[in-house]
């Protein structure tokens, strides 16, 4: 409850008086602020602490009112624009505004709230229909954006094809194969490959072998179609082949 005031020519909550005073709807000089404070103190029982809540609500508007009046009583300095004075009061106005919101919230709560105090027929809930059905009138940009982003989310992360550049080169493979053959009299194609190899590795190895054949450094043998490819250094051609 706001502190109710009853002075000459005004009856109502204090913050309303402040608003009126500021709008110059009421003559702030027409009544005594001292009387106002006195009346307030009389109502407040300091011993029992009754009305403390009201006292808190009273203090800020009352102080603002006194300040406002004092400002009007003092001669205005040159260059002291009216705007500045208005600005000083704004925090107080904001405070009152916030009080008003609180009152508004209370009165909103007292309304017959649909789904709490009163109910109407509802198709989407009682028929067990899945999903939310929007009235076309009520659909706005928010729903549209929401639907769009929901759709985007449902797509999941974009599939990414990661291509790792295999650094294996034909010339490197040639060297490796020659080195391997130097210590082995004969190898099959599979033995030239490491345990884990990529398709590129496979192709490069094959190309390296072809290159070595072209240079007449090795000999390739395939005993039967689709069979294992055998690799021999030229220096060590098995006798039966020779």
């Amino acid at each position, binding site marked *: 409850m706001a502190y109710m005031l009853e002075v000459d020519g005004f009856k109502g909550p204090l913050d*309303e008086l402040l*608003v009126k005073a*500021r*709008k110059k709807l009421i003559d702030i000089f027409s009544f005594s602020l001292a009387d106002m404070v006195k009346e307030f103190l009389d109502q407040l029982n300091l011993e029992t602490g009754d009305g403390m809540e009201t006292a808190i609500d009273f203090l800020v508007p009352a102080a603002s009112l006194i300040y406002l009046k004092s400002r009007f009583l003092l001669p205005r300095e040159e260059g002291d624009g009216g705007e500045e004075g208005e600005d000083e009061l704004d925090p107080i*106005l*904001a405070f*009152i*505004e*916030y009080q*008003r*919101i*609180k*009152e*508004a*919230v209370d*009165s*909103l*709560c*007292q*309304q*017959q*709230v*649909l*789904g*709490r*105090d*009163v*109910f*109407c*027929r509802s*198709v989407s*809930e009682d028929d067990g229909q899945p999903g939310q059905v*929007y*009235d076309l*009138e*009520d659909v*706005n*940009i*928010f729903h549209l954006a929401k639907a769009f982003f929901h759709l985007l989310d449902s797509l999941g992360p974009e599939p990414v094809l990661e291509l790792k550049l295999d650094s294996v080169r034909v010339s490197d493979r040639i060297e490796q194969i020659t080195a391997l053959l130097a210590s082995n009299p004969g190898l099959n194609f599979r033995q030239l490959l490491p345990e884990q190899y990529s398709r590129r590795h496979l192709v490069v190895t094959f190309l390296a072998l072809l290159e070595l054949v072209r240079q007449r450094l090795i000999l390739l043998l395939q005993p039967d179609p689709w069979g294992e490819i055998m690799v021999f250094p030229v220096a060590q051609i098995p006798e039966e082949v020779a």
Partner: protein
Amino acid sequence: MTREELIPVVESLVFSSQRPLSLGRLAAVLKDVPADLLSETLNCLRADYQHWRRGIELVEVAGGYQFRTKPCYADWVGLMRNSKPFKISRAALETLAIIAYKQPVIKAEIEDLRGVELSGLLHQLLERGLVRMAGKKPVPGRPFMYATTKTFLEVFGLNDLGSLPTLKDWEELKAPGAG
């Protein structure tokens, strides 16, 4: 059609409408019925339902007419319904109240008034269809403006924004800032 004949017709139309049925919509359906007879019929219907033997009543909400359960039977209806009762936090309600009274309003203005950041509150209100985006404000950054929806009126049983409680006080408060 006489008024007596019209009452059950209007009753069936209001009953079968999913959302509050506006007078304009009603008039569009009942083309030949004069407007004053229509509102007279609605008043009769409303009076009929005020009878203590009725559990529902005809209310004027969000610019239309709708049948709703009487508040005194809320507990019973609540027992039957599986869905959770309408709940809204104090913070959300404050935000909603600011939007209702000051619309169209931008986020920064709401935060100024409440003195705290809104975080998820706006989204929550948008999600529940109580608040809508009402275009962008032509100021730097072009922030979104927010306003209340028809659903807001329906939920809080208001016929229009003018029937918001203590709006007069608010207007009075707004004036010095503008002047």
